[in-house]
């Protein structure tokens, strides 16, 4: 019996433990399920450092595609006191779910400093605000 339990635990940890993987574990923001862009975030890598929270976000674009960009992955910093956000890392892809090689990848404050600005998002009236609300709770 003990042996069975031991092997079961080892199997479970090896199969499901996210700690040993360098891949994302995306959680869909349910409010975006039927929107033109579905938004996901990685719960396990929402971290607080100094005054800000940092998190990874994936957006799947389902309509009105610009330049055949089907998805974007960004690393964002959030000020939960002011509901403002800045994108630090940006990658876009010509496949959904951030698959394949990125079409464009950059560190925003390095490449386009003018775009590295705080943007306010209403928690009740914007999709990004909904994400921000979940991150900050």
């Amino acid at each position, binding site marked *: 019996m003990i042996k069975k339990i031991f092997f079961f635990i080892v199997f479970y940890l090896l199969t499901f433990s996210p700690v040993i993987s*360098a891949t994302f574990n995306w959680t869909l923001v349910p409010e975006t399920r039927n929107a033109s862009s579905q938004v996901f975030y990685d719960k*396990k890598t929402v*971290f607080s*450092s100094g005054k800000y929270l940092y998190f*990874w976000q994936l957006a799947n674009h389902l309509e009105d595609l610009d330049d055949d960009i089907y998805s974007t992955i960004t*690393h964002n*910093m959030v000020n939960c006191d002011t509901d403002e956000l800045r994108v630090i890392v940006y990658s876009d892809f010509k496949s959904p779910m951030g698959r394949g090689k990125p079409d464009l*990848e950059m560190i925003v404050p390095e490449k386009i400093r003018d775009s*590295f600005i705080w943007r306010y998002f209403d928690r009740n009236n914007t999709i990004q605000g909904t994400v921000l609300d979940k991150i900050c709770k």
Partner: protein
Amino acid sequence: MKKIFYIFLFFSFLTTITNAANFNWTKYSIDEDETKEWYYDKKSILKVGSYKFYWILANNLKNIEDDEYSIIGHHMVNCDTFETKWITYTGYNSPMGRGGVTMDFIIPEDMPEAFKWEYFDPVDTIYGGLMDIVCKTR
């Protein structure tokens, strides 16, 4: 059988409860001159496009300046060239990222001249060895 079910449930809770906003530091090593002690967060290691990204913590053990006992940073590595760039810098007045914040900035924004690719030998340098671990994490 019931026992297995409860054990399964127990481990599910252990591995799925969200750790949002809590780092889980793994000690890596101490610099040869014993000035810095390095940690990294395994679950923060993520591959995006050409690079891997990860969070580190360094405790300053000697020559403490400006009351800065530890720093937390988000770093990126090019695993083909063993070069790194450091993106964020947050200093604390206690070890292990505790206490008050002494400095908090985005390096490419506030120190663009310092935001450049830097090579670390994976065998001969402490930080290079840490990059090697990050690059080998699949």
